[in-house]
């Protein structure tokens, strides 16, 4: 259908051409436009012209649509008849109506349209119809939506600092995550160079420039490292810098995403520490198990065959009347008992060194009774040797067997090493504590030996392997450990003039109980 554009006044703006010619050209223009649907509605809203743009955007051919009411372009949720009436009313009244909204294509699909309806009046001002121009803005709207959603995303993210740098590295945008992580508000930081976030030594090394350089060359820069907050504190950051380019590949700036991994790093460190600690515990348990097994072997498995040997020797001695055999059996027996004592000493050493110390069964004891029992035993073991003994009756808190072991060791040593022509003295006295001095005359103990006399496996010159004493060099060490377990001490004093004195000091029971 042809339109009388001249009748509508179109072309008045182009006075250089005769009116009919102008209208003709205008018709041509409309026919060639493909990006806009341009058509005319008659005053009651029926389509009366249709251009190729309209056909492309709405899908109808001219034949299909001319004569139909323009309400067919509206989606079903809209009261199309009422809306169309209103739009035309506004256009008629104000000369123009414009909106953006969804419209429907012939195939039922939706598109986002910019719609302009212009009232067409003749020279006398009578309404002759409406020009309707519709633009399909679906793609633009999608892009706008995308941008809006993206901005919303960036602005709602609190766990990541997301911001933009210009090509020189100056901050141009700032999100709440950046404010939370780095401590700056957007007004404080926008316009500042991003080196603000780096420790001084990193800036001096040219780290900032290098990072942007790498991002430009490789399309991306990523690292983990220390960064600074506004308050000067450091945090462990994961940083990504991505260059931003326009379609013509011009560098617009950089997107920088920073995560605070301090907590993760600390969690990793504590996890590692925990793993190390549990490995150490497992190792400790393994060592303890080994120690227990070792103690069981010493204490049980080695003693059983010795018990058999002892028993066998005892039986044979009963049966044998041959003197040579009896002498041999005596030597076998003394060796077997020596072996037994050495096992006891190794057990004590192991307990004191490895298994958490010697176990003591502390009870209230009378010192005099304990000492006199040992002195009596020593007197019968050394019948030719005088022992001068004096001890007051006083209560101490001690392990009977262990204290007997200590005094037996010290008095035995004095008898074994002292001058046989002089007596050994065992003299106890009570003051703030209990002190038991065991003294012998004879060759003194050299100072260098004295210094190490309580060390395990020490063997002074006086104690060679041929010595009468039991030969592991553990006796004094174990005695010292036992007395230490009683909160006491052992001191040594030895020179040629005064002889040798071992002095055992033990706390009084009343002091320990107080």
């Amino acid at each position, binding site marked *: 259908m042809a339109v009388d554009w001249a009748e509508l006044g179109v072309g008045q703006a182009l006075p250089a051409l005769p009116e009919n010619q102008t209208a003709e050209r205008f018709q041509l223009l409309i026919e060639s436009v493909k990006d806009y649907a341009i058509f005319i509605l008659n005053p009651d809203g029926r389509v009366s012209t249709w251009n190729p743009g309209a056909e492309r955007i709405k899908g109808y051919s001219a034949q299909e649509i001319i004569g139909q009411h323009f309400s067919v372009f509206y989606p079903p949720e809209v009261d199309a008849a009422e809306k169309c009436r209103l739009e035309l009313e506004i256009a008629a009244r104000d000369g123009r109506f414009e909106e953006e909204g969804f419209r429907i294509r012939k195939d039922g699909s939706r598109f986002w349209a910019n719609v302009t309806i212009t009232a067409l009046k003749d020279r006398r001002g009578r309404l002759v119809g409406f020009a309707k121009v519709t633009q399909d803005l679906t793609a633009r709207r999608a892009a706008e939506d995308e941008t809006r959603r993206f901005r919303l995303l960036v602005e709602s993210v609190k766990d990541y600092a997301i911001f933009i740098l210009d090509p020189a590295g100056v901050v141009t945008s700032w999100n709440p995550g950046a404010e939370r992580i780095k401590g700056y508000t957007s007004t404080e930081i926008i316009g500042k160079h991003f080196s603000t976030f780096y420790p001084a030594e990193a800036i001096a090394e040219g780290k900032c420039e290098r990072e942007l350089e790498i991002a430009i060359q490789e399309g991306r820069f990523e690292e983990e490292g220390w960064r600074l907050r506004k308050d000067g504190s450091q945090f462990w950051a994961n940083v990504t810098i991505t260059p931003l380019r326009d379609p013509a590949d011009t560098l617009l700036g950089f997107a920088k995403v920073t995560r605070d991994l301090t907590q993760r790093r600390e969690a990793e460190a504590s996890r590692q520490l925990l793993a190390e600690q549990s490995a150490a515990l497992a190792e400790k348990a393994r060592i303890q198990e080994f120690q227990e097994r070792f103690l069981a072997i010493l204490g049980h498995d080695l003693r*059983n065959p*010795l018990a*058999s040997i*002892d*028993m066998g020797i*005892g*039986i044979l001695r009963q049966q044998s009347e041959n003197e040579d055999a009896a002498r041999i059996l005596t030597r076998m027996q003394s060796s077997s008992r020596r072996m037994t004592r050495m096992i006891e000493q190794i057990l004590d050493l192991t307990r004191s060194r490895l298994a958490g110390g010697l176990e003591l069964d502390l009870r209230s004891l009378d010192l005099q009774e304990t000492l006199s029992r040992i002195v009596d035993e020593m007197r019968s073991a050394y019948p030719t040797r005088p022992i001068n003994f004096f001890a007051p009756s006083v209560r101490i808190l001690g392990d009977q067997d262990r204290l007997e072991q200590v005094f037996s060791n010290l008095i035995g040593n004095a008898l074994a090493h002292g001058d046989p022509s002089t007596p050994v003295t065992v003299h106890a006295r009570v003051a703030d504590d209990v002190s038991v001095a065991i003294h012998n005359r004879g060759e003194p103990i050299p100072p260098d030996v004295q210094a190490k006399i309580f060390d395990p496996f020490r063997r002074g010159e006086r104690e060679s392997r041929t010595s009468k004493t039991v030969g592991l060099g553990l006796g004094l060490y174990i005695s010292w450990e036992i007395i230490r377990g009683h909160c006491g001490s052992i001191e040594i004093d030895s020179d040629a003039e005064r002889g040798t004195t071992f002095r055992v000091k033990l706390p009084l029971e009343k002091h320990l109980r107080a």
Partner: protein
Amino acid sequence: MITTASTHTVLIVEDEEDLRELMRHALQMRGYRVVTAAEGTEALRKIDDIGPPCVVLLDLLMPGMNGWDFFEKLRQRPELASVPVIVHSSAAARAPQGVTRVLQKPLAFETLVSVVGEYCSN
């Protein structure tokens, strides 16, 4: 089942065979009747066969029923509750409460004979 106490039967409960046989030999030499067992279950069976002994010489660390469990079972039986039990062990310090006597291994022949002599007649 014999329940009368024997005045000269000694029960040795000991897993170490050499020691067990030497102890048997030592006590038999002195005229005692000796019954042996390598662990607690066997010892309880022997008691069922022979009746209560005059004394039990008891090792503690044994495979099978150990000395602690054996002692508990023995004391639960009224007819055996008064049988003297002498612990003879390398773990003497851990002997159960209520045993008659505790002897640390190794034990000399003379000690064995004199201790048994206190409870039994040969």
